[in-house]
């Protein structure tokens, strides 16, 4: 296939795609990490940490989700477009939650 592929000259996103096969070993490490994190978050919930309880719980959840997204869902090995898509979803999600909460939180600031 020495002839130029017409699609190679489209976006770089077409060209750079080569199917990366993640080794099962990586999966095994990740699933181990996920299970350990689950145990950790359960343990953490039994410890009185005040405001840090939810923060720790969410931080661990975010970490776990990141592992799943990067490795199980192959985003680490994916094109920029996929990464951008994930980022875009996260961004809108945060806009929805953040901007709505902005109203609820600032309602308490004044007598309105």
């Amino acid at each position: 296939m020495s002839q130029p592929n017409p699609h190679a000259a489209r976006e770089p996103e077409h060209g750079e795609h080569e199917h990366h096969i993640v080794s099962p070993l990586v999966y095994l490490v990740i699933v181990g990490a996920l299970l350990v994190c689950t145990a950790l978050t359960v343990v953490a919930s039994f410890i009185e940490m005040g405001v840090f309880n939810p923060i720790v719980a969410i931080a661990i959840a975010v970490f776990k989700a990141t592992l799943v997204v990067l490795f199980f869902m192959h985003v680490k090995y994916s094109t920029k477009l996929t990464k951008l898509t994930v980022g875009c979803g996260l961004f809108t999600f945060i806009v929805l939650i953040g901007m709505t909460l902005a109203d609820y939180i600032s309602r308490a600031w004044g007598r309105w």
Partner: protein
Amino acid sequence: MSDSPAIIHDAPEADAHRAHPAWQRHHFETVEQQADTTNFAMWLFLLTEIMFFGGLFTAYLIFRNWYYPAFVAGSHQLNIWWGTANTGVLIVSSFTMAMGVWCAETRKKNGLVLCLILTFILGLGFLGIKTIEYSEKIEKHHVPGFHYSLQSFLDPASDPKIYKEYHDKPLGRDMAVHTELYFSLYFAMTGMHALHMIIGIAILSVMIFRARAGAYTTGHVTFVENFGLYWHFVDIVWIFLFPLLYLISRHANP
């Protein structure tokens, strides 16, 4: 940007008439393009799913801030061990799914079938545990809208099993009624999640048969891959639901 030099291709005729694999749809130029496209479409679909759950998460955060004691008391009604077990089950099922994708990529038919069956069983297991949890809620009349009972919150001692562990103080009636809101969100969120699981399992059951027929181990892995994305996404939702619903202040009241 707009005045970049024109790229002119003289696509040779020979290239256009390469042999197409059977699974290549007519409107794609190459198999890679097709795989890329469907993969991207799947990601976009997952974006809509993120926003779909986003509405629920927003509601959850607001009411958790407003009615924190009710949320704590409601959360204590959930069985943390079932929840943890379910998290484990789902994570392992995600792992078997990922392995399934790997098997498909490396064209291991039997491995793929095994992985899909395992995923299927784990998925059912998750739903089974969820059913046990739900039935517990139904017994205690903790299903909002259906003879919802405040007893466990007005008088925690009446629920000795949970009281023993957490020594919850009784809630005022005005706060206790808000536990219904907690359970509304609990059922809405886990229910939506379970609905996604059911859809996933239904697709899986078809996939197992097709995988046995060798449909995914010929090099055309897009479908398995995309289903894997969906399955992992459902897993991620649970990864967040678990701490949000089960792990609100599990430490016993002093």
